[in-house]
């Protein structure tokens, strides 16, 4: 497939300025997202997966600074474009959904009002929808009156709520976020993201805070949406089960780096990076009769003073001398499977 990827991230390095020092959160992150694919980013806390998503959407906190690299999307470098351009992209082409819907949804506006806002920001869409509905003979947005725009927006809102499998849509539109349950709020957030008809949908740990049976509902919804939604998805999670169910390709992150990237089946069948292997063995999996779980010795490194060379080397059971001083680059080992580890370099120690 020689089609250009939708999003290309190249060697992005990012630091956080804190009172305690410079936190080197991203250390040269490189990957891409193809059109129509679902890419998963897995890793434990502090690995930088959420930070990566925030740099794509331009929602980084004030004390963050990107020190090198580029994020290419629709012919632009998202790291250097102006704020208002980025806002436009967030309004239409890239939509992000977070773990905690309570901070994302405005508590003083009804769901209907918030959805309406999204649609009203996209007048072209309203106009084409109006045309489809036969409600307006004009193509230009300026000829749609405010009340007409609202009517169309409401119809579109009901549509998108149906898409996320929320029943009784008229009622939901009149409700405030606090009147809805956790699962319903998540669906509303997903609805608001879909309302933008984005090219890229980013979901950051969206089921982590939910109960198991509610999470199941959302996972099934995401599975169905995957068939209906033609854009790309970036799914960020720490749960390998979710990744196995929903993603086409998976990237494993550790301490600010992508350490392995492969097709989902390939990754699970054939994990190469010692961290990936360790992670998979550390998770209790149903059916495995084990007395003890295999652990990765040590703890996640301090990113103010990260280890030299490969950031995983202090914990790696296969560490070589080279690993302590030379940082491994992502190497393609075939079948689209890339891994950043000296064990798989051309020369083996």
């Amino acid at each position, binding site marked *: 497939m020689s089609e250009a990827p939708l999003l290309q991230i190249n060697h992005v390095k990012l630091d956080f300025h804190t009172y305690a020092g410079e936190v080197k959160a991203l250390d040269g992150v490189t990957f891409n997202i193809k059109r129509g694919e679902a890419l998963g980013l897995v890793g434990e806390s502090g690995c930088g997966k959420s930070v990566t998503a925030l740099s794509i959407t331009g929602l980084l906190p004030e004390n963050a600074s990107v020190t090198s690299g580029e994020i290419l999307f629709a012919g632009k470098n998202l790291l250097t474009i102006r704020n208002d351009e980025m806002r436009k992209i967030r309004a239409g082409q890239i939509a992000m959904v977070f773990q905690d819907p309570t901070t994302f949804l405005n508590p003083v506006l009804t769901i209907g009002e918030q959805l309406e806002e999204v649609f009203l920001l996209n007048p072209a869409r309203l106009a084409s929808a109006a045309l489809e509905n036969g409600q307006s003979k004009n193509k230009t947005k300026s000829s749609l009156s405010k009340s007409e725009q609202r009517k169309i927006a409401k119809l579109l809102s009901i549509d998108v709520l149906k898409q996320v499998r929320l029943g009784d849509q008229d009622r939901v539109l009149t409700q405030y976020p606090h009147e809805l349950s956790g699962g319903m709020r998540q669906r509303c957030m997903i609805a608001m993201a879909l309302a933008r008809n984005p090219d890229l949908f980013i979901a950051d740990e969206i089921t982590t805070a939910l*109960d*198991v*049976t509610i999470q199941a509902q959302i996972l099934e919804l995401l599975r169905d949406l995957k068939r209906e939604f033609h854009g790309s998805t970036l799914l960020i999670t720490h749960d390998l089960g979710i990744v*196995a169910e929903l993603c086409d390709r998976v990237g494993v992150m550790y301490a600010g780096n992508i350490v392995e990237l492969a097709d989902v*089946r390939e990754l699970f069948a054939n994990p190469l990076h010692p961290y990936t292997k360790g992670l998979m063995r550390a*998770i*209790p*999996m149903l059916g495995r009769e084990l007395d003890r779980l295999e652990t990765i010795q040590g703890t996640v490194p301090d990113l103010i003073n990260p280890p030299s060379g490969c950031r995983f080397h202090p914990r790696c059971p296969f560490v070589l001398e080279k690993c302590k001083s030379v940082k491994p680059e992502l190497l393609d080992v075939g079948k689209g499977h890339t891994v950043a580890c000296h064990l798989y370099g051309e020369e083996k120690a």
Partner: protein
Amino acid sequence: MPPLRGREGMTQRILEVKNVTKWFPITAGLLGRTSGYVKALDGVDLDVNKGETFGLVGESGSGKTTLGRCILRLYQPTSGEIAYRGQDITKLKGETFEKIRRKFGIVFQDPYASLDPRQTVKSALIEPMKYHKLVRNNEEAMSKAKELIKRVGLNEDHLYRFPHEFSGGQRQRIAVARALTTDPDIIILDEPTSFLDVSVQAQILNLLSDLQEELDLTYLFISHNLSVIEHMSNRVGVMYLGKIVEAAPKEIVYRKPEHPYTHALISALPIPDPALSRQRVVLAGDIPSPANIPHGCRFRTRCPYAKDACTESEPALETRQPGHLVSCHFDLKMPAPIPSLGTASR
């Protein structure tokens, strides 16, 4: 998992919970009248055998955390009995109660909040020992503290540090050490690894398994994480809206459950195997509030098999086979919640 222990081959019941309820009154209006109750526990029955790990699963509103707190008497049960080694402890007070309390240990979910930030580790460990006069002098307390800290995988010089200097996993180790200071028989573990990363979780779970074998401990392991429960438990109890709906050895709960909620719960688990394809059971609707529990069978509002009988009366928790309790009007034959793993037979 370590085998069940007991005297003369018989399993000994170390903890019995009999029909325990915990209702929290909801006050409303100017005069503060009670307009209703949040029925966090609504008649819980369960038995824990000495030396085993009993896993307690449930979602929000299930009451599993409340049950843990009632057993520790952090909450006073509204009614019912909790028996430790055959003796009812719900109404004990004073000296007798303090003696019993020492036999229970607790490890909480949040490693950042369960330790006093202004107390050194050494002080946190020594305080319970000296308060209960379990040691004769400071030297004895110190040596016991050193022993405990090493037992949980940390070093002696960690004793002189403050909680904020440790990572989450290390703080949980300290919490475990603290729980052991009073030589407990049974430890309540309330979501001990939920806030920890996967790799750290593995270390803590291994530590808990090792300690159980070394010290002949009994665990009541409360969690919403079904994989962890399956790994750690001998028997599992499933709670829904304040009651146990099914309790059985773990193999049965995970492979041949007989309550539709258990079935849906296990089926909901995402499995890290992309080759596995299956039909997941998805429950409709949301979990009802414990302030407004459906009458009849409390699960009927989401149950795919609900019939009229379910609205009319609440099913009792009955023993269907030895060691397997279910509360359901019907004898449902449901397919395995998760088809065999790894073999993509479809």
